């Protein structure tokens, strides 16, 4: 399956899912609508149907050979597709991990860990001192700035108060 064909199907399925599954459940119609005001589901439904139509047009154009020109694959380090997918999951897992561990370690330590992991995931190995400085001192400096200058109170988690963050 080509990328254009997959894209057309994905767009159609996405908007169809919104139109036929999400809107009926998550966009309730109030019992009383004042005057001639259109109901709250009118606009999301219109957009979803238009989106579905656009997806179908993209799909059909590809089938007819009149779709978009296939853009060249994004420039990479030449790693096999399996590795690229693993890296993408690694990034998503790092983001999810930050949200999950935040109640335990607090915002500052969570940000340190996430930044450090992201630097490692980019393949950076040459600037160790800078990497550590950005990962550790960056969150500390930003926490201090936002707390002192703007009065922002960051989540401390369970560990934060123990180590004074």
């Amino acid at each position, binding site marked *: 399956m080509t990328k254009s064909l997959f894209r057309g199907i994905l767009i159609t399925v996405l908007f169809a899912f919104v139109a036929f599954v999400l809107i009926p459940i998550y966009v309730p119609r109030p019992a009383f609508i004042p005057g*001639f005001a259109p109901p709250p589901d009118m606009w999301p439904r219109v957009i979803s149907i238009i989106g579905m139509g656009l997806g179908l*047009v993209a799909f059909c154009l590809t089938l007819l050979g009149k779709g978009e020109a296939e853009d060249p694959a994004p420039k*990479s*380090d030449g790693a096999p597709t399996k590795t690229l997918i693993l890296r993408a999951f690694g990034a998503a897992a790092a983001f999810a991990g930050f949200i999950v561990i935040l109640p335990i370690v607090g915002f500052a330590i969570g940000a340190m860990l996430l*930044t450090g992991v992201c630097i490692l995931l980019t393949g950076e190995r040459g600037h160790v001192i800078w990497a550590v400085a950005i990962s550790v001192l960056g969150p500390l400096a930003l926490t201090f700035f936002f707390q002192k200058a703007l009065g922002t109170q960051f989540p401390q988690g369970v560990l934060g108060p123990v180590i004074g963050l």
Partner: protein
Amino acid sequence: MLNDILMALQAVATLENLLIMIAGIWGGVIIGAIPGMTGTMAVTLALPFTFYMDPVPSILMLVALYKGSTYGGSVSAILIKTPGTASAACTALDGYPLAQQGKAGKALNMALYSSVTGDFISNLSLIFLAAPLAILALRVGPPEYFMLMLFALTTVAGVSGNSLLLGLVSAAMGLLLATAGEDIYGSFRFAFTEDMQAGLSVAPVLIGLFALPELIKMIVMRAAPDNETAKLGDQKVSRAEFMRSFKSILRGSSIGVIMGAIPGIGPSAAAFFSYGEAQRSSKNGKNFGKGELEGIAASESANNGACGATMIPLLALGVPGDVITGVMLGAFMIQGLTPGPLLFQTNIHEIYMLFIGMLFSSVLLFGAGKLTMRMFSYVAHIPQTLLTPTVLLLCLFGIYSISSSMFDVTVLLIMGCVGFGMFLLNIPAAPFLIAFILGPMIEDNLRRALAISRGEPGILLSSPITWVFAALIIFVVTLTVRREIHKAKERKGEVA
């Protein structure tokens, strides 16, 4: 009148006022250049300080912050493809490719010259056109608003990326996401969690969509770093280059003035619209999105051109043109001034002082831009493998501090993944963003128009203004489709 102006000049040209404006411009440029720190945030944070200041200096400080942050957004847009403000999103389309070609300095200079020119024209228009434009804006009702925004959206969808179809898909996704939360009649839509009842904020969606995909690309692709990217490189904008873009700067400034004067539209839509117009009419239209100076000129002149103009409805009608002028309205109130037609009768001296101060701020913006550019240009020397995680760090702290909400941080991270997915599928991000910003206004005006007409859709084409916008939409779509057909034929020719 001349006597009043001279008195206002004397009152404004004090060391104290100049220092306040310099601080405002500098602060604005720095805040605007930091991803996650918006101009709204800068103006809002400065509001409490205005309690302790005289009326005119306090308003001038807020205006300076606004202008500075609008320009500052372009700095990070060019250097790290992370628009500091939504209105700088178009600047990234050509600014970042130029930075990659080793011409970051040139791009920054063009952004500065265009911003200052747009800003100056905007100030002049505020001074001379405030009253007439305000009267015109009064005639714009819900159907006209709807058609105007639909036109802006069509233009953006047409000029972003290589395909009108994918641009429209992106816009539809943005419009759909913008419907989450409470609608104008109090119904909650797509409220999967309690946090979603308030809808999604612009800042995490904007930053997530534009900044984080760069980090994910760096993690996944690990493309070999381009040495040219890390250099500031060619810095000067030649006279010929400036003159080539001058038409786009003038057009962009005019678009900025007109769209800024219409309440609710503001700098972002003006920048996108101006960019689209410049691409459509320029001889170098094909180079837009690949590092065309004219694209930067069009975008930056329009967003700064809108800054002064958003003060037109605020001063003349008491209607804020965007969120920032809404905060300024609060500042006026704090100082015991009530913006509106009466202000021109009761506080004309303050009005003139404000006008003179705004002209001064254009000059100060130039100076601050030149100095700050050198400071920020060092960002281009930082390896991308360290810079992109640092951007993530700034985004995390910046987004959290806006509303102390972990939900916003979660949205930021999710939008980063969505943005990366869109990149893989070649779906442009710009129409998504502008649709997300304009979405609530488009829907509100459509529903208001339909409520007025008792459900009759004919109201959307009921006045000459709506006809003009409908004709423009058809014109833009036709032109874009023709351009795509032409490109397809060229491709076939190349293959044959």
